[in-house]
């Protein structure tokens, strides 16, 4: 009997390792090297990382498609090997292969049947309408564009109102308007209480949809946390001063000019150092107009984290 409480993470992996053993080779390909991750229930969680970091292997591990070499995987309080747990998961694979000669309603009906749900033709039509395929209900899937197939895959993942949505590149091939629609649907699902686990190369997409992000590199989680904490600069601030300010005077106060006029950067690890720098600037006659922490976008966070990880790995190797 699986007891699930609100505090039980939706996904919890500990020391997850996966090595793909190949025939006629002594050593296998290591995809995951001891991964620890906890995804809170009800969160919109994004997994990002460079190619070959192990993202797809991780997703397959939490769905029971790939069997871990070592470590534990708990999903919705149980094992992903348990069909009752998988019945509560909606999954959209990266390259969903759909039967081209079927109609979308037949496909959704089959997925519903295999999920053990009663027939619900009206519900399936409503899902197709929700993902923007209302006009293509009568057409065969073979005639669908890539974006339409992705939408249908999303509709299939939404069947049965799952507690956990695992989406691998959900907006791949979808036009910008379509992406907005998909984003809206995902946000609605999160508001409904669904936990969203998103793997997307489109970092802007992850940034817009997710509230927590993990960065995976070389089979390990190298950084994880709330999105706002990750993108916030740790000690770098942006200050804008009124026109007429002396660049030399501000430079001696620790301010570095930015590209825009009147805008400067300053490094200050805490409030005392920051205020001391501002006092020096004011003493030099500068008038502060705006002050904010220098935020980064997710791309910068990813690049910085992965580069730092690579440098550490090189140091260890040396």
């Amino acid at each position, binding site marked *: 009997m699986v007891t699930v409480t609100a505090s039980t993470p939706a996904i919890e992996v500990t020391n997850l390792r996966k090595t*793909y053993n190949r025939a006629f080779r002594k050593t296998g390909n290591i995809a995951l090297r001891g991964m620890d991750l906890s995804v809170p229930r009800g969160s919109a969680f994004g997994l990002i990382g460079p190619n070959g970091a192990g993202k797809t292997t991780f997703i*397959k591990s939490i*769905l*029971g*498609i*790939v*069997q871990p070499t070592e470590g534990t995987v708990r999903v919705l309080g149980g094992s992903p090997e348990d*069909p*009752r*747990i*998988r*019945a509560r*998961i909606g*999954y959209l*694979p*990266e*390259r*969903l*292969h*759909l*039967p081209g*000669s*079927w109609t979308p309603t*037949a496909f959704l009906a*089959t*997925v519903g*049947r*295999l*999920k*053990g749900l009663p027939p619900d033709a009206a519900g399936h039509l409503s899902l197709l309408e929700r993902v923007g395929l209302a006009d293509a209900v009568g057409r065969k899937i073979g005639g669908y564009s890539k974006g339409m197939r992705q939408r249908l*895959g999303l509709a*299939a993942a939404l069947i049965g109102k799952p507690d956990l949505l*695992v989406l691998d590149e959900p907006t791949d091939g979808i036009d910008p308007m379509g992406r907005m629609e998909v984003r809206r649907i995902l946000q609605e699902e999160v508001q409904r209480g669904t936990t969203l686990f998103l793997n997307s190369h489109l970092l802007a997409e992850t940034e817009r949809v997710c509230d927590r992000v993990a960065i995976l590199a070389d089979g390990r989680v190298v950084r994880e946390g709330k999105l706002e904490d990750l993108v916030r600069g740790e000690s770098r601030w942006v200050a804008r001063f009124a026109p007429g300010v002396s660049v030399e005077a501000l430079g001696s106060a620790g301010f570095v000019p930015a590209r825009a006029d009147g805008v400067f950067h300053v490094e200050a690890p805490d409030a005392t150092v920051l205020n001391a720098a501002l006092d020096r600037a004011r003493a030099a006659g500068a008038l502060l107009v705006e002050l904010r922490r220098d935020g980064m976008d997710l791309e910068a966070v990813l690049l910085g984290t992965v580069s730092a990880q690579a440098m550490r790995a090189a140091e260890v190797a040396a």
Partner: protein
Amino acid sequence: MSPVLGIAGYVLREAASRKFIMAFMVGLTLVLAVVALGMRIDVIDGALAASRLFGQEVRATIQSVDVALRPVYQASAFIVFYGGILFGIVACSDFAPSLMSPGRIEHLLALPIQRWHLLAGTFLGVMTLALGGTLYGTTGLVLIFGVKTGYWTVGPLVAGLMACVGFAAVYAVMLTMATLVRSAALCAAAGFAVLVGGIIAGHRQDIAKAFEEGLSRSLFQAVTLVLPRLSALAEAAGDMAASLPLEVRSLGTLLVGVFVFGLAALVVGFWRFEGKDY
């Protein structure tokens, strides 16, 4: 609904969309229609008096209908057995590899079904297809000749069912091959190999004499020992269709042998599939 039936339905729906399977069913219907419409048989007091095919008289001596129809039913049984298995190998070789293709297998495995459901459902779907096609053809033949001659027999139907048993053993190997290598060509090759091996195994005692006594003969006997005796089963099917006494010593043992072979192949496939990463 059982997930196995759900997957079987998935396979059947896929099959229905294949043009060559539909073409086969249309072709079979046309053959039956030609036989029904083009052949005229005159029966007097249970004896075949005359028969005409498209108006041309077929030369034959006057004999009782059941005797006259024996070669027809026997030939049909062989065509259904070997032709059916050959067509099945070609037509069904890519069902399992297609289900296991990237993007589809992940989606299926993430659904709340057990892995064995997927293989069992695929096997059931293909066998339903084979059984449906076989019964359609043999029932049609029995009905046509029954109506025309008044001679009714279930022999061809039983022969058709035996062909399905033979195909089940062949497809079990094809399905297992798909769990090892996702290739329709290799699945078909494995099916052909079992068919040829099964034909040889049915005559192993006679063929063994062609080998020199010693290692080569023992090796041949050892290899053919585990193969299903498909040619013996086909001959038994032919005899059953023609209502002739069986030449094989024990049909039961023959069927059990084929069944055990198929089951063993499936067990290997299930075991491999359970532990495979996709």
